C-alpha cells in the first residue's frame, strides 16, 4: 500500500470517526428511550460507522490519481500570518470593539500581504469600516457592540 498524504488524511478521518463513534455511544439518553427504535444516539452511531466505512475503503483501495502538492511553492508564511491576525482579531473584538479591531485587522492584513501604498491602505481600512458599520448599524439596524466608540462618545 502506497502511503501518501491522501491516505494519511483518510487514516486521520478513520481515527476521528472511531472517536466520534465512541462519543456517540456515550450520549446519555432517557431511561425510557434506551430501547426505543430511535433515540438521540442512533443517527450519530450510524454516522460513525459510515465514517469508518468510507475512510477505511479509501485507506485500503488503491489510489487511482495520486494528488501531488509541491510544498516548496506554497506560501505558508503569509497564510500563517493571516491566520494569526484573524485569531488576534477574534481575541480583541469584544473588548476593544468592532471599529478599531476591524480597521486594524484590515490594515495589518494589507501590510503583511506586501502592500505599501499607505493612503490607499488607510482609506480601505478605517473609513471603509466606518462606512460599512454605518450600513449595518445605521441603515440595516444590525447591532454592533463597540466599547471603544462608546468610550469616546461616538456611539450611544
Amino acid at each position, binding site marked *: 500500500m502506497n502511503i501518501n498524504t*491522501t491516505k494519511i*488524511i483518510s487514516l486521520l*478521518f478513520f481515527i476521528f*470517526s472511531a472517536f*466520534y463513534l465512541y*462519543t*456517540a455511544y456515550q450520549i*446519555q439518553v*432517557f431511561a425510557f*428511550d434506551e430501547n426505543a*427504535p*430511535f*433515540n*438521540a*444516539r*442512533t*443517527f*450519530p452511531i450510524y*454516522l460513525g460507522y*459510515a*465514517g469508518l466505512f*468510507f*475512510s477505511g*475503503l*479509501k485507506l485500503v*483501495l*488503491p489510489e*487511482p*490519481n495520486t*494528488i501531488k*502538492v509541491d510544498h516548496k*511553492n*506554497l*506560501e505558508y508564511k*503569509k*497564510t500563517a500570518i*493571516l*491566520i494569526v491576525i*484573524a*485569531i488576534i*482579531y*477574534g481575541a480583541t*473584538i*469584544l473588548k476593544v470593539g*468592532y471599529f478599531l479591531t*476591524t480597521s486594524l*485587522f*484590515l490594515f495589518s*492584513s*494589507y501590510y503583511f*500581504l*506586501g*502592500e505599501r501604498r499607505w493612503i*490607499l491602505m488607510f482609506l*480601505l481600512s478605517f473609513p471603509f469600516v466606518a462606512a*460599512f458599520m454605518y450600513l*449595518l448599524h445605521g441603515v*440595516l*439596524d*444590525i447591532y454592533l457592540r463597540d466599547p471603544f466608540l462608546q468610550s469616546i462618545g461616538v456611539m450611544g
Partner: protein
Amino acid sequence: MIEGILIGLTTALTLQNILMVMVGCFFGTIIGMLPGLGPMTAIALMIPITYGFDPATGLILMAGVYYGAVFGGSTSSILLNAPGVPGTVATSFDGYPMAQQGKAGKALAIAAWSSFAGGTLSAIYLLFMAPSLSKVSLSFRSPDYFALMILGLTAIAAFSSKGQFLKAMMMVVLGLMLASVGQDSLSDITRFTFDNMNLTDGISFVLVVMATFAMSEALTIILKRNDPTSAAKQVSLTELGSIKINKEERSKMYKTIPRSSIIGFLIGVLPGAGATIASFLAYGMERNVVNDEEKEKFGKGSVNGLSAPETANNAACSGSFVPMLTLGIPGSGTTAVMLGALLGFGVQPGPRLYMTNPEIFWSIIMSMYIGMVILLILNLPLIPYIARILAVPKNYLIPLILFFSVTGIYVMSFNNFDIYLMIGIAVVATFLRLYDFPMPPLILAFVLGGLMEENLRRSLLLSNGSWEFLWDRTLTLCILLTTILIVVWQFYKSIIKK
C-alpha cells in the same frame, strides 16, 4: 396560479426588491468573474446582510447574486479564458476564440442574450412545474424524503468529485457529523458539545459556509500564490468591439436556445447535477445536431457553441430551485446555502411553502425574470467597466474577503468562540482542498443533516425499528435503486475501469 403570479409581482416589484436584485446581480457579476470565487462564496458573503431584511427580500438578493455570478463567470471565460465558475468552462471553448478574433463584444452579447433567454425560459418552466411538483410532493412520506436525501447526497458526491467519489462521501459524512453537534431536536439531549455552552445550539450554518468557502478560498489563494486578478491586467478591456448580433447569428441562436434551455433546466432539477454538467451536455448535444459546416467551427468561435452552454447554465440555475422550493431538498451546493439561509429566517421550504409563504415562493420566481432583464440591460453595457474592477490587487481582495467572513460571523453571534471555530474549520478546509476533497457535499450534508435525522426517526418509529421502510413503498424503492445505481457506477468508474 394567476393569483400567485400577482402576489409574486407585487412583492418582487417593490423598489427595495428591485434594488436588491440590481445589487445582487452587480455584486454577483464581480465575484463570479474572479476565477476561483464562485456563486457559493458570493452568496455566503451576502448572508449576514440578508438577515437585515425580510425572507423574501433576502432570498431575492441571494438569487440575484447567483445569476450575477454565473453571468460574471462567463465574462471572464470569454475575455480571459479563465472561467470564474465551473459552469462556464464550456463557454470558453468558443467564447475565447471569438474574443481573440477581435469579437469580444459580440461574444459577450451572445452570452448575455443566451443567458437571458435560457434564464427566462427556464423561469417559465419553473413557473409551471414548481406548483405541480409541490402538489405531487405532498404525497411524499418520511421514508421517501429520507431516501431522497440519501440520493441527493450521493449524487452531489458523484458529480462534484471528479473521480474521487470516496473523498466526496467522506465529506458528506463529515458534514452530517458537524450537523449532529448540539441539542437533539426531539429530546433536547446535548451531543458532542464536550460541556462547551457555545456548542449547545449546534454549529451555525453561516459559520460553516463562510469557513469552508469564503475564508478557505481566500487562504487557498494566498497559500497557492494564485492571483485571480492577474489575467485581467493582461488584456485590453476597452477594445471589446461591437456588441451587435447580425441576422445570421440571431437565427442560429433561435434554434439553439430552446433545446439548450430544456436540457439545462432538466439537468438543474436533478439533485447534484447543476450548471457544469448542463453546459457540457448542451455543448455536446449542439455539436451533434448542427450541420457539418457548423460543426467544423466548434472550438474556433462558433455562435452555436457559445450560445448552447450559456443558455444551459442559466437554465440549470433556475432548475436547481425546483427541488429546493418544492421538496425542501437542495439539488446543489449553491441552493443548499440558500436553503440554510431560509431556515435561518425561520422559513421551512417544502411542498407547503407555496401555501404557507406564497409571497416568498412566487416572488423568487418573479424576481428571476427581473434579474435576467437587469443582467441584460445593466451588465452588458457595463462589462468593460466592471471588468476593470478586477484589476483590484490580490493584497486588497483577500483581506476584504476575510473581513466580510469574520464580520458575518461576528454580527450573528457577538461571540469570539465562533470566530475561532470558523478559523479552525477554514484551516482544515484549506488543507483538505489542497488534496481535492470537495466542499459542496459537506455543505449539502450539513444543511440536510437535521432533516435527514428527523425523517429517519419518523421512518424507524413508524416501522418499529425495522429498515423495511426502505423497500415498502414503490417510490422509496425507486429512489433507493437510483442511489445504488449511482454508487455502483462510481465504484465501477473509479476502481474497475482503472
